[in-house]
């Protein structure tokens, strides 16, 4: 259990995803949702690593070991958001009740015309962001996505909505190219979105306090805004069960113009601000947490089923030679 998260096999599996797609779009969402119960049970029984991650995470944020029922609820929530991606990407937005919070703040920043960097996380469903852009074809949405990491899911997404593929910046490219591509999209005034809570194994990290222990975050997402002088906004689509989502936009920094020597400190501060708001939302609704690996120690020994692993936060962020 010492694999980095990126080496874990794709959690959905082609079969489950095929099932969700086939049943979902033919029979509709209620029938597909009924299938989530056996799928949840299957995952609970057959994916011991993810099960232990859930136990450890819920123990940490809720202060006591969760019941098996609660862990299954956690898995069920995750499966529910995977299913909803199908409907969101097929642009069947009408069936969802997405409540927006802070949209005016985002629009005010978009009107400056320099692009906005939206930082999400592996919580809830980032896909509900698309619902916010309905009826606004002028909004250019660019999404950083590793299309090779989750091939089954990516195939499915492209089959459902080929147009979305054009807005994807492939995170599997060399890191330098990714950052240049993000900069180019921002220069075109796009809404550039990426999930800022996972670093690749070889990526430079910053260490932040998250849910009571130090955790590594990738440095690049938090350095970009300062270098390109664009506003940085947190974006979380929290799933509330049924067809309800809460989509939050929270400004984290406005075109931070830090002097060159202070950029590292500014990126660190921004990463910590991001972590604090993420913690706030996750503590309110822990079953929205979809990082199925030891978040505090992604390259370590893996999670310990016995407890929250208080020693898991050792600082292993790569520092510059």
């Amino acid at each position: 259990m010492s694999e980095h998260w990126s080496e874990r096999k794709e959690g959905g599996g082609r079969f489950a995803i095929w099932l969700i797609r086939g049943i979902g779009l033919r029979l509709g969402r209620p029938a597909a949702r009924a299938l989530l119960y056996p799928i949840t049970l299957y995952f609970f029984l057959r994916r011991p690593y993810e099960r232990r991650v859930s136990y450890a995470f819920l123990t940490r944020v809720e202060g006591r070991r969760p019941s098996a029922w609660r862990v299954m609820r956690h898995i069920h929530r995750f499966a529910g958001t995977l299913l909803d991606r199908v409907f969101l990407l097929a642009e069947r937005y009408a069936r969802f009740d997405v409540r927006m919070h802070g949209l005016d703040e985002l629009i005010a920043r978009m009107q400056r015309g320099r692009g906005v960097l939206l930082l999400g996380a592996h919580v809830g469903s980032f896909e509900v962001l698309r619902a916010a852009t309905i009826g606004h074809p002028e909004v250019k949405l660019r999404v950083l996505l590793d299309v090779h990491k989750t091939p089954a899911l990516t195939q499915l997404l492209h089959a459902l909505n080929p147009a979305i593929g054009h807005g994807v910046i492939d995170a599997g490219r060399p890191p330098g190219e990714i950052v240049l591509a993000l900069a180019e999209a921002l220069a075109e005034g796009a809404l550039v979105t990426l999930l800022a809570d996972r670093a690749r194994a070889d990526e430079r990290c910053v260490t932040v306090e998250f849910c009571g222990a130090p955790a590594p975050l990738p440095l690049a997402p938090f350095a970009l805004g300062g270098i390109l002088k664009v506003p940085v906004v947190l974006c979380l689509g929290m799933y509330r069960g049924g067809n309800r989502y809460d989509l939050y936009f929270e400004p984290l920094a406005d075109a931070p113009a830090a002097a060159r020597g202070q950029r590292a400190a500014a990126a660190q501060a921004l990463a910590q601000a991001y972590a604090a708001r993420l913690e706030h939302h996750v503590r309110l609704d822990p079953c929205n947490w979809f990082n199925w690996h030891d978040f505090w120690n992604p390259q370590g020994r893996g999670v310990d089923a016995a407890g929250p692993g208080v020693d898991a936060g050792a600082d292993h962020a790569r520092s510059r030679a």
Partner: protein
Amino acid sequence: MDTTHPSSAPSQSAAEHELAQLIVASLNIDWIQADAIEPEAPLFGDGALGLDSIDALELALAVSKRYGFQLRSDNPDNKRIFGSLRALAAHIQQQRGAA
């Protein structure tokens, strides 16, 4: 840092030397002098310079400011262009010639 070390320039051309100075100045590099950058050594990864993705962006911005053209993310030759000081300097010369 040993600032008294004589510039043991490993055969940098004038254009390479100018670019090396731009890299060192724009990326705030204090662990290697411009003169000491090997023209053929890798710029990124585990080499003596050890630049990363954010450095690539800073470098692209500095090149754009100084030389007036964009290093693009979709150039199929990026691996080669960003591979060494020599390759990047050659690319810059070529782009400036084309402009």
